[in-house]
């Protein structure tokens, strides 16, 4: 019996376009949410259904996690730090932000998704090319919040309670703090720094929430917090 020829591995994540990755996020999110909703009925739900949901959620997460490098993160930080008119830079930054969001949402608020497509579209409109990195970071946070790029249904300001809105604002601040900070020396260290940035903004939530209406105050807070990351 002849052995089946081994197929070359397909770099799936690289081949996925932004809308497809968003679809995958939605799929993983829906699977996760469905599992959460079915939790009270766990005994009544057939095991194969729960297994299928877990497989969907896990597969989506694994595919989304692949394909981000330290260089991508450095490029996203550079986009935040200085003006770039290239759409591809905005797309690259959006991809890193979406990766970071997906990583963080697995621990808390898994039902809040971030759309890479909407993020990329909004990043391209941050027009102030004279602002320094902290002010650009503040503009990014406020622009992404106002465009509702994250939520249960990204793009629509519906079905979000105050707690969820606050969670989205803080998570966006965490991403900004992470990108403003000194870069790590490996992908593992970058992920570690992302977790620490998220924890740090949680500890500074009162200050950040108070600054959300004032871009200058928000820029200062983001700069000071990132200096301590």
């Amino acid at each position, binding site marked *: 019996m002849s052995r089946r020829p081994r197929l070359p591995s397909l770099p799936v994540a690289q081949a996925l376009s932004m809308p497809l990755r968003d679809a995958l996020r939605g799929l993983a999110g829906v699977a996760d949410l469905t599992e959460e909703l079915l939790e009270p009925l766990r005994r009544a739900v057939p095991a194969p259904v729960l297994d299928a949901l877990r497989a969907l959620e896990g597969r989506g997460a694994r595919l989304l996690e692949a394909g981000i490098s330290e260089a991508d993160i450095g490029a996203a930080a550079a986009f935040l730090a200085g003006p770039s008119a290239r759409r591809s830079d905005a797309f690259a930054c959006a991809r890193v932000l979406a990766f970071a969001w997906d990583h963080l949402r697995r621990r808390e608020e898994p039902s809040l998704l971030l759309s890479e497509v909407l993020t990329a579209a909004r990043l391209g409109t941050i027009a102030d090319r004279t602002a320094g990195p902290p002010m650009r970071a503040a503009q990014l946070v406020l622009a992404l919040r106002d465009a509702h790029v994250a939520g249960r249904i990204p793009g629509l300001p519906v079905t979000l309670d105050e707690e969820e809105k606050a969670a989205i604002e803080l998570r966006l601040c965490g991403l900004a703090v992470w990108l403003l900070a000194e870069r790590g020396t490996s992908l593992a260290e970058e992920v570690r*720094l992302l977790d*620490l940035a998220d924890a740090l903004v*949680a*500890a500074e939530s009162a200050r950040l929430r108070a600054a959300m209406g004032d871009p200058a105050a928000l820029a200062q807070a983001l700069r000071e917090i990132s*200096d301590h*990351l």
Partner: protein
Amino acid sequence: MSDVTPVRPVRKSAQRVRWFIETFNAHLGQVEAETANRFVLDERALVAAFSEWIHAFDAQKPGRSEDREAFVGFAAGLMLRSLLRHAPARCVGGPEGADPGRPAHFWPEGHLYVTFCLKLRGLVLEQDFHARQAGAPAVLDDLRAWESFRENVAADSRLAVAFLDLFAGADPDWHMPGLFRPRPGPALGPGKEKARLEP
């Protein structure tokens, strides 16, 4: 802790959460090895302690360069205060037949935090001021001191600053421990230590 001594000065590195967490983790591992105590660490609570500490640090940082050496001990005391408030570590087990008369087993978490803050204090003093922290004073092994420490900081966490000075062999300010007031002065003698331990 020497294996995580960074290239930049410790006083600068300690103001960055990435170094702080790594160094605390290294210290925790070392304490576990030395005492056979086992801890679980809530890293988000540790970050919250760091955040509170950095604000307290910035709020009282002295402008005069001649006050900076005195501020090192005070800043380490503020760190102890924040660690006690946020309680990021929890001891989940110790060695069989552990001697509760030893501070590390009497109050494992308190011992963990105190030894961490003393190490940082010593590192900064040595690196920036070429000053050696007084060798571990007898009070560091005195169970009565630890009983007093535990009881007093539970009632008023600001006293952590004064107790860290005591454990470092320096002169504690028991009256306004949460306020930085540079005071030249030698470490307390054993008699004085004893007297001041009685609240």
